[in-house]
């Protein structure tokens, strides 16, 4: 009886170990899927920023989109804001940043993100979280009532991304998922 218990304990340990190994050592295909997922979240954010900044977006819609955009971030994440007129970079809580973006005092605003790519690949941390840095270039253009360009700059920003495996219960079963959360968005460079 004791022998059976020992064997069962060993088998159970091996199973747990194998399961943990399966999660730790991701196959290149799975890693690729997670890399793509994180990039997609940044592209989603890019679209949200554009909608929020767009003056023709109804107020209620903009607020709904702010909620969706905020869900992409870790709690307490900050967004850097720069301008050509000042070397200072100001950091705002993401919710504050989006609300300020929505209320910008221009008649028309266009925000476009491009060259969205990893500058630092997702690396596994001791706590199991994968951390990487994605860089983006943001072109900001503001126009007056007559359609004249008032202000324009291009800012390079680094976004820290955190990807962690989590579990939730849906319909009575446990679902393992990859939770991608964006961290601080730091301004690296601003130019005309």
């Amino acid at each position, binding site marked *: 009886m004791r022998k059976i218990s020992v064997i069962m304990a060993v088998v159970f340990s091996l199973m747990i170990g194998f399961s943990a190994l*399966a999660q730790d050592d991701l*196959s290149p*295909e*799975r890693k*690729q*899927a*997670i890399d*793509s*997922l994180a990039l997609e979240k940044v592209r*989603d954010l890019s*679209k*949200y920023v554009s*909608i929020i900044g767009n003056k023709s977006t*109804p107020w209620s*819609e903009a607020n*709904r*989109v702010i909620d*969706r955009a905020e869900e992409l971030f870790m709690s307490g994440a900050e967004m850097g804001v720069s301008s050509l007129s000042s070397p200072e970079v100001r950091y705002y809580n993401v919710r504050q940043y989006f609300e300020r973006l929505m209320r910008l005092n221009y008649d028309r605003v266009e925000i476009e993100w491009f060259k969205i790519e990893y500058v630092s690949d997702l690396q596994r941390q001791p706590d199991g979280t994968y951390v990487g840095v994605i860089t983006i270039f943001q072109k900001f253009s503001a126009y007056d009532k007559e359609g004249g360009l008032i202000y324009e700059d291009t800012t390079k920003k680094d976004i820290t991304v955190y990807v962690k495996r*989590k579990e*939730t219960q*849906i*319909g009575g079963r446990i*679902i*393992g*998922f*990859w*939770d*991608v959360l964006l961290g601080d968005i730091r301004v690296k460079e601003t130019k005309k």
Partner: protein
Amino acid sequence: MITKQRFLKSTRQIAMMVLIALVSLGGATGCKSKKNIAKDKAAAEYASKVEMAKKDLNSILDGTSTWSLAEKEQRFQTIKSWNLEDTEVQSLLDKVEDKLARDRADVQRKAEEERLRKEEETRLKSEANKYDPIENYFKAIAASPDAVTANEKIAGAMQLFSTPDVPVLIIISQAGGFNDYDRPTTISKYLDYLKDQKTYNSRVNQVKYDANNRISELELIKK
């Protein structure tokens, strides 16, 4: 005088006998020659059949023949019907019979595989079509030119679901026997997502329905 007559009679008789003997001998020799010719001809025909049989059977065996399986089988039966008593031909016939049996089985197997493939294709098509109403709503929402149109489509799509909080699971990878999911969302948020992002790059993988035949859980998979 009498002796002379007897001599002449004897000479005639001898000549007659010689003539009869010659005629008989000549006739017998001609008959034997005809038989030989026929025998030689038959032997040549047999040898030709043996050669042809070997050639045809070898070409079937080594795959150089351009005949169809039915033509090969017909040829095999023809050669077999010749009943050639040649050991090489007999050995080739045995080998060809085996090969044709294998080829026939192969053709039947391929036909069965093709039938199953078509059946599976039809099944998958009907399976895929089963989700067309959902897919069409998703595509229409993503392709909406403005928020008003998208909202109308969203209202229509919501009729398919039990509640706005129906869970939506999105598979991002199925490698290594694992289903990797994105963070689960709700159908209400997902439809808004399609409206905002203006793109639908997944397909419906699985659907669960409630007692009222409305969707109670949706699983998508990234393309």
